[in-house]
Structure formats: structure tokens, C-alpha cells
């Protein structure tokens, strides 16, 4: 099996159009909360979102395309023969909201082809939908294809935007915060949706060398599971997430004691965050080590969330810093000593990151400092 590396990445979030801008925004504790103007949301629970207001679509495109264009511009070129995996999950919402009367992409295959055309490479690849763990699962699937030698490089690309479709849906499920997103806080009361896009190029060592690509992080383990418990709610004991995390750590050759930080899904909903804290206790016992979530700052970016988390993890390893969990005021007891509203110095060599979604899906990745 070949080793898999992150060799290029780019993100667009409400904090900025690059990993550096997003990182600076996290560091400063920016929350970038905007009122929703594109549609009436005054009577919904969540009236605000983390938006990128200047992402305006070109003709026959939509805001998902506009955001994706931003991350592709930063990652071009990619090696010929790169497999593209699209992992945005609601790319049809804008089409539906336009009453299907305006020409724009509306099926996942359209986005996959659209990305291939923008990059000028063949339409090798496919799309993946694993709810809010989509780009995490896409990274695992892409890494597996590189590891067994099917491809030298795989591009994971995802974008999702704040739509009436999503805001109304999460609102009636009572999942949106009426106040502020506060992951792992005792008083948390829901999540906040955000615009976001990500592009991550994975490659084996030979492809990285051939195309003079820096190996930014080693993707050394991955795991995927299902709770087999409930469609919209996570299992209370975190058993499914434990399976995914243990599979990822096992592949990376890490024991729980070796694992040095955890980037949580941390949506700020009561049930998700409780489930994650239960899983952390089940895997790591009472060991205190850095745990963080970026959703208090950038919101929940749906299909793009896992990829954005992974990019932040790669950047954290390089910068030797753990970003603050923006919004946290009074941590849950199981979060105390782990999650912090302050940035933390970090000298570790690995971070595990995970995401969970509707349908009981869980996925975890281990990112490590590249051994030279």
C-alpha cells in the first residue's frame, strides 16, 4: 500500500477566501455572523448564517459554482489523470428554489463534470454523498484508491451554500441556534449554517515528486461507520463514531495514548456534541488533550465541512497551533480541559478529525506531520 499525502489545498469560508485568511479569522475569534438577506427567515429559528456575500454566480451557474471557482483557482494546476471526487451535498437546492427555470447544474454529475472542465482534465471520477461527512468520506475513498495504486492523485472538491431549503429544513428540526453557535458549551442551543468550499489534492509520494508538489501532511488513516441507530439523531453513546475513530487510528498505527489532538465535528447541537464527548471518553478515557471545533466561527458548511476541517488540521500541524473553539464560554464537564476558547500551542505530530451526519454516518481521518 502506498502512503497518501495532502499536497495542495484551498478553502473559502465566511472568514476569507484562503486557508490563511480563515486561520487568521479563527485566531482572532471572528464569528462572521450575518443576517440572511437572500430570503425571508425572520420567522425561522435560525435567522443568521455564516455567509460569503460576494460569491456571485456567472450565467448558467450558481453560488455553489462561484465558491468552487474560488478554491479551484488556488489549486490549479493538478497533475494529468487526477481523479475528481465531488462531495457537495445539496447542489440542487438553488435549482429547486429557482423553480427549475434557470439553467444551472442540478445533479452531482454536473458538478463533477464542471470541475473537470474548469481544470481542463478528463472527467475521471465520480461524486460521493455521505451527508455532512461527505468530504471526509471522499478523502477516505480517494486515499484508498491512491493507496492501492489505482490513481497517483485524487482531487476532493466540495461546496455548499446557505439556502432557504437548508435553513427551513434544519429550522423545523430545531437544529439551528437562535443565539450563537457554541460548540461543547453547556448552554449550546444549535448550529449555524455557513457557506463554504474546499479543494484538497491527495497524491502518492512518486506523483508529488514528479510534479514538484510539497507534501503538506500525511493522511495516514481513515475509517467509516454507521450508527445503525437513527436517521436524524446520533447514537447517544457514540458507538458508531468510536468505530470510525478506532479504524482510522488503527490504520495509522496510533494508540489512543499516541493521538495528540482531535478536530471534532462540533456542530453546537445538544445531541451531536454530547455524542462526540461520549465517543472521546470511550476512546481516550479521561485523558486531557486538545479538542476543537471551528463551526462556531465558520458555521456548518454541510458537505464541505469535513474537507475544511482537514485543511485546518494540516495547517495546525504546520503552524504548531490549535485554533480556538470560537463561541465556547462554559465547557461541558467532559469538554473541560480539552476544548478551549483560546488558541493553544501544539507540538504534536498528529491530529484525528471526524464528521458525522444524517443517516448515522461517521467518518474519521488521521493527519500526521510528514516524515522527511
Amino acid at each position, binding site marked *: 500500500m502506498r502512503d497518501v499525502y495532502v499536497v495542495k489545498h484551498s478553502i473559502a469560508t465566511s472568514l476569507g477566501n484562503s486557508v490563511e485568511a480563515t486561520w487568521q479569522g479563527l485566531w482572532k475569534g471572528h464569528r462572521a455572523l450575518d443576517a440572511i438577506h437572500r430570503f425571508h427567515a425572520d*420567522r425561522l429559528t435560525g435567522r443568521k448564517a455564516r455567509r460569503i456575500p460576494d460569491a456571485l454566480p456567472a450565467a448558467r451557474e450558481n453560488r455553489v459554482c462561484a465558491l468552487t471557482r474560488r478554491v479551484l483557482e488556488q489549486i490549479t494546476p493538478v497533475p494529468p489523470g487526477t481523479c475528481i471526487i465531488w462531495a457537495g451535498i445539496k447542489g440542487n437546492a438553488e435549482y*429547486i428554489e429557482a423553480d427549475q427555470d434557470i439553467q444551472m447544474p*442540478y445533479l452531482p454529475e454536473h458538478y463533477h463534470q464542471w470541475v473537470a472542465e474548469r481544470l481542463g482534465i478528463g472527467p475521471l471520477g*465520480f*461524486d460521493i*454523498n455521505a451527508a455532512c461527512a461527505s468530504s471526509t468520506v471522499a478523502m477516505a475513498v480517494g486515499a484508498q484508491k491512491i493507496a*492501492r495504486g489505482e490513481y497517483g492523485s485524487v482531487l476532493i472538491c466540495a461546496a455548499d451554500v446557505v439556502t432557504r431549503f437548508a435553513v*427551513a429544513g*434544519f429550522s423545523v*428540526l430545531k437544529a439551528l441556534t437562535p443565539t450563537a453557535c457554541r460548540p461543547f458549551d453547556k448552554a449550546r442551543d444549535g448550529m449555524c449554517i455557513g457557506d463554504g468550499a474546499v479543494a484538497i489534492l491527495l497524491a502518492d509520494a512518486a506523483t508529488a515528486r514528479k510534479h514538484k508538489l510539497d507534501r503538506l501532511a500525511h493522511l495516514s488513516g481513515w475509517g467509516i461507520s454507521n450508527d445503525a441507530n437513527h436517521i436524524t439523531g446520533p447514537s447517544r453513546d457514540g458507538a458508531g463514531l468510536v468505530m470510525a475513530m478506532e479504524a482510522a487510528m488503527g490504520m495509522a498505527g496510533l494508540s489512543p495514548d499516541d493521538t495528540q489532538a482531535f478536530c471534532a465535528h462540533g456542530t453546537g447541537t445538544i445531541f451531536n456534541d454530547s455524542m462526540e464527548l461520549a465517543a472521546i471518553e470511550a476512546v481516550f478515557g479521561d485523558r486531557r488533550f486538545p479538542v476543537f471545533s471551528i463551526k462556531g466561527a465558520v458555521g456548518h458548511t454541510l458537505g464541505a465541512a469535513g474537507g475544511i476541517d482537514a485543511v485546518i488540521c494540516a495547517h495546525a500541524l504546520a503552524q504548531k497551533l490549535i485554533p480556538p473553539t470560537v463561541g465556547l464560554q462554559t465547557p461541558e464537564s467532559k469538554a473541560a480541559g480539552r476544548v478551549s476558547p483560546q488558541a493553544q500551542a501544539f507540538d504534536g505530530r498528529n491530529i484525528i478529525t471526524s464528521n458525522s451526519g444524517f443517516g448515522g454516518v461517521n467518518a474519521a481521518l488521521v493527519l500526521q506531520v510528514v516524515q522527511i
Partner: protein
Amino acid sequence: MNVNVIGGGWVTAFKWGRMTDGLKPVMAAGDPLVPPVEEIYSSPPVRYRRFDSYCQIGCAAIALALKDTGMDRAESTRPIGIIASTRYGCFETDLAFYATAREEEGIYASPNLFAFTLPGIAISEAAIHFKLTGPTFTVGDPIGQRGYNALCIAVDLLSSGTCRTVLAGWIDAGSRLLKQKAAGDDGVRGAMFIALSTAHEEKTIRHIRQENSELLAGSGMKITTLMDLVT
């Protein structure tokens, strides 16, 4: 890497069936026939009455495939994965949900419909009912390839040792509400799943093997759709 095909089931506009019945699926345009609940489930899934048509046919084909392998009943969870290819996914339900969300600023949007607005919900409902805790997600399904992408990823999961048994399949219910069909849509609707395993040699119906990026049947024939394995 050799993989055993240990069972399969399908639901089409013509009929439903299982591999070990000796039947061959007939792919036909039109709405798939949904088998009677008592014919495929020992007890129906908890939320069966809320299922949309995409979920109904997807779960039915998974139930038939599991019944075909004798693995449709279990006391505890099992690390079996489900990977499904789909082109339209739950588009019909997306449209139905949005119809409830567009009035009154969305305050009367249907939470039940929203819960079905992801294509993976159908296979997750099956995972819950049959206690399957392996990977569950959907992949795109270009025209004419019904299930091929899912099959490739399922074999990847088996070859990496992630799972010892995976259900790979295809689900498409289309949408009557969608104004614009995808290019090349031939109107065929239905669902089909086969059970693949690196174990259960005694249940093996046929073998497939992975060579580089290709899947080959035991005869050496290149596999390009799921149909190649059930006919």
C-alpha cells in the same frame, strides 16, 4: 483480489426477485413495483410508512439481497457496508419538501420530508433495520453504468480489509416533478443490490476479481454494470 458474490435482489418496473431464484432482472422504463411488505421483511422497518418511493425500493432490494444470503436476521449489529450508486437520488423528495418550505417563510416546512432529502437515507434506513454498522454512502451513477461505481468502491472496501461483506447496488426512482431529465435518461427505474464478501465461501454464486482498475468476472469478462453479475 478475489471477491465472492453471495446473493442479490432487485426491484424493477417489471418484477422483483433474487439471484438464487434463478430469475433474471428485466430492466424496464416506468415506476418500479414495490413488493408487499410481508414478502420481504419479517417485520417492517420502524418508519416504513414514512418512506418515499426511493427509500421503499432501495430498502426492498437490500432486503431481498440479504434474504438471498440468509443474512436478513440478526440479534446484534454487524460490520457490513452498503454502497449505492444513484443518478437522481432523492430529487423527488427534495422537490416535495421545498413545496412545503416556500410558503409562510418555511415555518410549516415538513420535518419528515426534510429527513429524506439525502440520497443516503434509503441505505441508512436499511442499515438501521438490519443492524449494519459498516460504511454507508452513495456515489454518482453515470448513464448506463447502473451500480458500477458502487461495485468498484465496495471491492476497494473489501480489498483493504475495511469490511468482509458489503452490499453494492443501484437505486433510482427518478422524479415526475423534475422538469428537466438528465442527458441520456432512458426512464429505467428500480433498485438492485448484490452481496459481496471475502468470506462465506459456502454461499458463493460466482467470483469476481479486481485487476488494476478493472473488475473481471470469473470467466475473464470485464464487468461494466451490476447487471453483468446477476444475469
